[in-house]
């Protein structure tokens, strides 16, 4: 069983986001990147499967700043192979381009299962998962929270809105968009990461020029603007609380 987990780095929201001069994208010169939270769950799910029934887990990512750290971290947690796609990446690439890049690289790895985070907060042109499945010619199920492997197939627990859960059986190989791993992503001690840095080897793959074509174009990017209907209550806590009470009474809520 070969499981590939493509990992994606996204802007860290701890830093304030700035919009670039073009007005249609983020200014990435100051932003820090961190591993997409859903991808962390995808990796955790892969490691759980490995522990349960044995598998080779390959972590793969694009060779941008912070990629090595993310891969060594994955190795320290238990990933067997680390693949870095080296290319002079722009700091932000859309999902279409990423899906093509990852797809080409993953095809060569011959996986039985591809686990990818179901979404990322910078996926303006849609999540990578379905597009990746398209590139690979594999079936896709998203919003998966737990799965078990069968003979040549897997049964994924898919979450629907409104508290409905379905079990979906897919033939392998397949791509699954992971919503949440069966348990929270594990902690890995820094000493383990350091050891991985010494012992694990990074496989470098030269990737072709990214092709972002086919995505919807972003016309304008802007921070939330104050709408007309909102009225801001000014003043200290006492005044604000008083006015709120007044409004609640007017609305018949109290």
């Amino acid at each position: 069983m070969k499981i590939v987990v493509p990992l994606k780095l996204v802007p860290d929201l701890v830093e304030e986001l700035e919009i670039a001069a073009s007005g249609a994208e983020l200014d990435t010169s100051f932003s820090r990147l961190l591993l997409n939270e859903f991808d962390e769950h995808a990796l955790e799910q892969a490691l759980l499967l490995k522990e349960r029934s044995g598998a080779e887990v390959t972590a793969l990512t694009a060779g941008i700043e912070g990629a090595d750290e993310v891969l060594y971290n994955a190795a320290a947690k238990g990933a067997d192979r680390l693949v870095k796609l080296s290319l002079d990446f722009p700091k932000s690439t859309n999902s279409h381009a990423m899906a093509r890049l990852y797809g080409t690289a993953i095809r060569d790895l011959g996986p039985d299962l591809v686990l990818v985070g179901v979404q990322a907060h910078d996926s303006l042109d849609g999540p990578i998962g379905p597009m990746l499945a398209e590139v690979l010619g594999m079936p896709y199920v998203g919003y998966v929270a737990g799965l078990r492997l069968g003979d040549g197939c897997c049964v994924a627990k898919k979450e629907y809105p409104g508290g409905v859960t379905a079990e979906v059986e897919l033939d392998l190989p397949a791509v699954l968009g992971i919503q949440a791993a069966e348990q929270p992503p594990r902690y890995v001690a820094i000493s383990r990461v350091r050891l991985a840095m010494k012992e694990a080897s990074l496989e470098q793959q030269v990737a072709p020029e990214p092709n972002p074509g086919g995505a919807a174009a972003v016309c304008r990017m802007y921070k939330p603007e104050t709408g007309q209907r909102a009225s801001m209550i000014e003043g200290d806590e006492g005044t604000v609380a008083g006015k709120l009470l007044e409004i609640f009474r007017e609305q018949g809520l109290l």
Partner: protein
Amino acid sequence: MSRTQRIQRLEELLLASSGGRTSQELASLLEVHRTTIWRDLAELSCEVPVQQDGHRYRIDRREYLSNVRLDKAESLMLYLALRRMLRRRPKLHPMMARAMEKLSLALRHPSSVRLAESIQIAQRQQPTDAERAKVWEVLVRGWMEWITVRIRHQAYGKTVLEECEIEPYFFEPALLTEGIYLVGRAQPAANLKMFEVDRILSAALTTRRFQRPEDIVVDQMLKHLWGVLYGEQGIPVRLRFRDPVLAQRVRKTVWLPTQQVHEMADGGVEWSATVQDAFELVPWIRGWGPDCEVLEPPELSERLAQLEREYGGVTMTTAVRPRPASFSQSFYESLHDMLDGERIRICLQCSACSGICPHGLAMEYHPRKMIALLRAGLFDAVLESDSIWMCVSCYACTEVCPAKIPVTAGLMTRTKEEMLLAGNVPPELQGALERSQRYGNPLGESPRRRADWAKDLKPEIPIMARAQRPVEVLWFVGDYPSYHPRVQHSTRSFAHILQALGVDFGILGPEEQSDGDSQRMSGERGLFEMLASKNGEAFAKYEFGEIVTTDPHAYNALRHEYPRLGISYPVRHYTQFLAERLPELKPLIKHELKATVAFHDPCYLGRVNGVFDEPRDLLRAIPGLELVEMSHHRENSLCCGGGGGGMWLDGFQWEKAHTRLAEWRIGEALRASGANGVYLGPPIPEKKRRSRASDEPRQPERQRILAVACPYESPRFEDAVKMVPGAGKLIVKDIAELLADAMGLNRSGP
């Protein structure tokens, strides 16, 4: 003549006549009726061996020791000696028990009478060791009547029984052990020899009386005996005690009459003596653990080393050999590698650690139990539970440990490290560690905004990268002082004070990382090293005289841990720094503060680093302030619950303990500052709380303040104030805030 006096006279009359007396004779001598004499004789025979030969009564002198009259104090001395012997014995010694019972009753004190009752109960419950009692009786008889005794004796460390005839001279309690020795001349060797009475398996009186020795001077004979082995030279033993504290004990105690104690230059001592059998000293020497080094004889140190190997480093368990358990064993050995780590072997399982542990009750495996499991090779159980995460690394256990085992730094922290390596860490803590790794602070704030607290301050706070000049003081601000909105107020207060004093200082700003000490104490040593090396790189870039910090955890790390990583700078806590400048500070204090203030000693300032007086000196410098002490203070201070990762385990610890240390502390602060009716425990319903608050007597406005000197504390204690009924008026303030207030430097409250 009272009856008691008459019975006493009766005893004297019987003792005085060798052939005994008839009841008729006694009746006429004592001028009472014969029936009275019979009654009195019956009474007397309860205490004295009265024998009847036909019509004659006499006292069996072999069984009788004359009446010794003791006053209360003398009885007490005997009582104490006996009590000590009895307590050390696993089995009730029948003669000791009887003697103890009599003495206890004679003292007629409620405590001793109670003891006598308990001995009676014990005697009924425990089968008396008849064989042992018989041996004793024979030996005592031989000793009393100068009759030789034939004994079967098992010498120390031997399996073969020796049989010999001895002339018993006297009994002597052992100095090193709990044994009692019989000293006598052994036939036919005709030398003085000592026999441990418990090793004499059987004894029988012979018919031979022996010549009384000219005179028995016990001390001299003993000295002779300890120093001489069967007429040959004794074995010289030399031991070295390096620890100055233990050396004090060695100086004060006499274990052997031949012992000599020599002072050494390092404050330790060398102890030497000549003994009959060096191996008898083995248990005593092992009791000292690594603190006692055998210099002489070599066979003795070899024997000790051999025991060490056999028992896998466990020196104190005598019952069962630990079964091999790879993890327990390797972990136990790894604990020995650290500073003073070997002391764990001398743990005597007294449980002082677990008793003083503020979370001990909520821990499935408290420190004492952890050590027991380690020794038993069953430590896996500890790693499978999550009770180690109740440890707040407050060092209370380390402080009270009589064996001075590094419980906190060693056992507890190393266990956390193992848990962490195994990925077994509560999610709350995991988050804090991940954030520390990623952002250089456990709060997960942007490192770029680390100096934002200083943004609006005038004059500006110099940031080293921008100032580009040497400074006297590099202020290591720390995580919570930089980011936590409540603690930022203390930070700004300290900045005002530094500026008012005209101190030339600078901060690192975004280049500063978490000091990493609490991450280290929560088991993430790798993360600590990573953070320390980043801070080290930043320090190396600039020139400064010393580091000052408001954070005791940072102070502790910079003082003790960073130097081990090659990052060594002089460092002081701000209370030390300001206390030194009190002469300059005092004239700047303009306002008095009418308040009763209790100071909370932070664990890492007080207990760990011994800084107790400086914070108090600073508080006393504020006029009008009355400083009071809480029930836990100085070395015995109570943790706020934030150390060792506790800062990031609030939910976890609450679920386990259903109490918060900070709330406990608030209760103490209230009591110390004069509040009545403080309720400690689970929050009481709102209704009750209100009525209680209104019950409180109205007092003239005098503030009650809990003063702190650690950035973990003001948020923790302020939260606790909200939870403890009746605590609403207690104010929590950092010393820096109180000083800045008194100096008129703070424009707004926190």
